[in-house]
């Protein structure tokens, strides 16, 4: 298993954010972490990226336990945060170079990877532009290219389509699905938007800090449409 979470619980003081969360995502699988706002998705991401330390439970990334081998685990992890983390005054290439250096890549080796990552995202012509001049979709693509620079085995995306228009959202969702099947990277995609999920995807339904359902989207929803299934499970209006 590329990503394994076992019995994870976390609370902010007395308020429980995650309660006994367990799931695993296999190699090359696209898993949608689906949940309404406040379900605990962001807390889970903070734990997965080691911004918080797990209070109880275990996380393993590409076979590395996050507690005992945090640096090895982080080296195999690519992250796209919900809020933009680009330095807007730097060019696309400078942003990527900075990140490459954080992962120990420099010089020609870094440049080659940057070129490859930008090409894959169709961003090679914008390499010299300042991040400030990019539209939302291109900023996101830059961040995805950056998250893939060090060839991570697991890619986390925290509501990456927030603030994007519908066509851009669709293109980005398709792109990450393709990436999954082409490169074998494991993807965990947090969202509350059901139209970003395909029937072949794994769905982990998170609600009020607990996993309500975990399985193939097609099998879970049965004959119901995914939005209806989602609404029924969470009691949330769609």
């Amino acid at each position: 298993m590329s990503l394994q979470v076992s019995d994870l619980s976390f609370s902010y003081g007395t308020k429980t954010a995650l309660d006994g969360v367990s799931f695993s995502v296999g190699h090359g699988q696209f898993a949608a972490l689906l949940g309404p706002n406040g379900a605990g998705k962001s807390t889970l991401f903070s734990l997965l990226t080691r911004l918080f330390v797990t209070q109880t439970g275990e996380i393993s990334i590409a076979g590395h336990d996050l507690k005992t081998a945090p640096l090895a685990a982080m080296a195999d992890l690519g992250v796209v945060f919900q809020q933009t983390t680009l330095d807007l005054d730097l060019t696309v290439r400078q942003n990527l170079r900075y990140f490459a250096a954080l992962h120990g890549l420099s010089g020609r080796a870094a440049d080659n990877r940057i070129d490859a990552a930008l090409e894959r995202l169709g961003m090679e012509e914008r390499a010299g532009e300042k991040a400030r001049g990019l539209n939302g979709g291109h900023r996101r693509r830059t961040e995805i290219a950056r998250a893939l620079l060090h060839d991570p085995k697991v890619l986390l995306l925290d509501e990456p389509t927030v603030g994007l228009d519908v066509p851009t959202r669709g293109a980005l969702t398709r792109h990450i699905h393709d990436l999954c099947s082409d490169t074998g990277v494991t993807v965990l995609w947090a969202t509350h938007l059901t139209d970003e999920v395909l029937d072949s995807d794994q769905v982990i339904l998170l609600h009020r800090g607990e996993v309500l359902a975990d399985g193939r989207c097609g099998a879970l929803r049965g004959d119901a449409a995914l939005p209806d299934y989602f609404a029924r499970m969470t009691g949330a209006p769609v």
Partner: protein
Amino acid sequence: MRHALIAMRAIVLREALRFVHQRERFIAALVRPLVWLLVFAAGFRAALGLSISPPYQTYITYETYIVPGLCGMILLFNGMQSSLSLVYDREMGSMRLLLTAPLSRTWLLFSKLLGSTIISILQVYAFLLAAWLFDITLPPLGYLTVLPALVLGGLMLGALGLALSSFIKQLENFAGVMNFVIFPMFFLSSALYPLWKMAESSELLHDICAANPFTHVVELIRFALYVEWNGMAFFWSALATAAFMALAVWGYDPARGMMTRKG
């Protein structure tokens, strides 16, 4: 090890690039002490009589007296500013990114600190050059011997800012930091008036000033500018640097989860 050094260089360079892009910040950093030097000091020269005390060999003007304090002021403001900019959400994002790098958190924070210290020191030298143009000169060798003192002071005040940034929730609290950290630290120190002068008005104030780590940084800089060594100032500055760094590392410790409170 190579990985760690590549990352450190990138972090320092990024700080430098960010600074270059914020021209207003550089101008503000240069103008602030110059205003103090040229306006404030001119007024105070008349009011304050300074006698000879080490490291000065002769009578000095008030302008000359406050130069080391203003060097300290640059380090103080810059250290706070570069760390407190982390409180911005956008910056918090880049901090999150930084902390996901597969390197020890202490190393990452130290690299960031080193970056902001180098920027501070360049500003101090720009100020010293400006002061020199206004005929406030120092022993030539002093410009060199002050460098290690500036490094230590920059690290200390940067670490303090970093520690504070991990505890402050919102940018609005920056005003609180100004009122309760920067101003007291600056005014209750030997930056603007010698400690013995302070003792004349209040023993208590004198004791507070003497305990203020910023006083020791200023004194270390003052002596170093005149190619002299001040062991006590060095000892207290080094101790405070270590303490603030430990506090910053603790503040950014994932086990404590500073982000938990950031929400």
